[in-house]
């Protein structure tokens, strides 16, 4: 049990912990600050922290010059599309695994997990060629399907661990009460699993949003999400730190906020329930 810690120790710990926290957070903080500077202030020597003329100019430029919204919409389409598709396939599968397990359920789960370990580069060539053949290159649909497939094992696993916590007797009660399979899922399982499904959605959106292998290799402009948008800043164009910062903030802000809300579930999802 917690014992009374001396106040000096607590203050010391506070200083230490905040220092470490700020140090780790610094690159993001610096990007945030720089995004409101003029390009000249952004590279001033010595650097200025907060004592500069704050401007929204960079954000305006990013939208007008680079069409930020186009990439942002693509990111939203891709992450939501792949998540919805994932849930449609994963909810029934996880239901079956959690409530009607057979001797092979465990093997199937582990096999699904092992597909996640298949290095993307091992299947890049055929996927690329298939995409070329079927005209899917740089299409949202093609990428939604790929993101759906690479995240499907994680979605199934997360839902499975959540569903397993729902007592089977409740579903049996629904069956006794005259609910068929569909009604059992809609009226009983789904409402009880809402928190779990919500965390699954969050994690999957984060993973899809930040996915940077397939999105970089299979898109050029049409279907390109924010990962590609930022990558286009990698070629030096002179003084562009402030604009790069603004673009970066725009790319990470939505997901940073989502992520902060779902950090606890993240552990569970990414470790496949091995650490709770």
């Amino acid at each position, binding site marked *: 049990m917690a014992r009374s810690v001396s106040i000096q120790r607590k203050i010391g710990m506070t200083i230490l912990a905040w220092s470490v926290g700020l140090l780790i957070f610094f690159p993001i903080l610096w990007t945030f600050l720089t995004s409101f500077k003029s390009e000249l202030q952004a590279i001033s020597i010595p650097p200025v922290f907060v004592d500069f003329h704050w401007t929204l100019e960079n954000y305006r430029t990013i939208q007008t010059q680079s069409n930020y919204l186009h990439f942002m919409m693509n990111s939203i389409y891709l992450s939501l599309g792949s998540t919805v598709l994932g849930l449609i396939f994963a909810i029934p599968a996880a239901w079956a695994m959690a409530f009607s397990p057979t001797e092979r359920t465990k093997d199937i789960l582990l096999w699904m997990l092992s597909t996640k370990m298949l290095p993307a580069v091992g299947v890049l060539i055929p996927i690329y060629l298939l995409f070329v053949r079927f005209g899917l290159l740089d299409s949202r649909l093609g990428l939604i399907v790929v993101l759906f497939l690479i995240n499907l094992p994680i979605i199934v696993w997360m839902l499975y661990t959540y569903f397993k916590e729902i007592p089977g007797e409740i579903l049996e009660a629904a069956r006794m*009460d005259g609910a068929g399979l569909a009604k059992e899922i809609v009226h009983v399982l789904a409402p009880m699993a809402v928190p779990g499904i919500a965390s699954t959605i969050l994690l999957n959106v984060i993973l899809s949003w930040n996915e940077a292998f397939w999105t970089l290799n299979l898109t050029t402009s049409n279907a390109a999400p924010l990962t590609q948008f930022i990558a286009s800043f990698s070629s030096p164009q002179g003084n562009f730190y402030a604009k790069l910062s603004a673009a970066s903030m725009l790319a990470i802000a939505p997901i940073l906020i989502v992520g902060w809300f779902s950090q606890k579930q993240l552990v569970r999802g990414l470790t496949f329930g091995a650490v709770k």
Partner: protein
Amino acid sequence: MGQIHLEKVRKTFGDVVIIPELDLKIEDGEFVVFVGPSGCGKSTLLRLIAGLEDVTSGEIMIDGAQATALPPAKRGLAMVFQSYALYPHMSVRKNIAFPLKMAGMDKAEIDRRVDYAAKTLNLDAYIDRRPAQLSGGQRQRVAIGRAIVREPAAFLFDEPLSNLDAALRVGMRLEISELHQRLKTTMIYVTHDQVEAMTMADKIVVLRAGKIEQVGTPLELYTNPQNTFVAGFIGSPRMNLLSGAEAEKYGAATIGIRPEHLRLSTTEGDWTGTVKVSEHLGSDTFLHVETPVHDEPITVRADGEFPIHAGDTVYLSPQQDKLHRFNAEGLSIR
């Protein structure tokens, strides 16, 4: 209506036989209790009747109609689970209304029935609460409410009282018995507690390893146990079962005598013994007496105020007409 017949029902999980071939007739309106030690297959048997498990072979008839292949929803039975299995995201009202809603009943009728059930079960005050805000006993009532609104052909209870504390258990036991008096609907009740079985049942089915050991009224089982298992299982404290030389005197392999059928004396009797432990319950005193005739202490019931202490010497005499004799197979000799 609520007649349930099991014919040649078998259940196996892989190579494990849970229930060898079994026949059982449950008549309309009966309160039947399945009792037995844990792992005896009583819950499986109930789930087979409910349709939550498939029979491996055999037939289940409900009111004369074939029900073996019917899904649980179509059997017209209601079940109260050990964990109550209430829907945590629904209010008490919605929990009770759920089976009616599933049946597609119109709203006015649902409301009428739910209100009536809530009133009879003293749940009106909690009708808008969620299960998590209720006590164990209240949850139990909601589970019962959910079962009765459907007016099922039979109620199935799966150890419904095992999650309640002792005091509440006695109260709920009475309530369920009263419910049966009032509804006169068939009830099948599973428990490992022979006191529940004795107090509630019209008919007790004693199970061991999936086999029916004996079927009968509580009193029949008490007075005429067909074998040593039933003899030892029904009655509290347990019947004393003696084998060896003492049993041979009576021409049996084993003899059984209940604690309440031993005459106790400090001066004379058939068996001499030393009191090892005495348990004073107030109304009764139970003595555990070590005797040369049996390697385990013999339990004897005495009066509440019987003045006796550990270490005292006592004499025991079995009442001859209450003595049970069993042969080498453990079956009762009549």
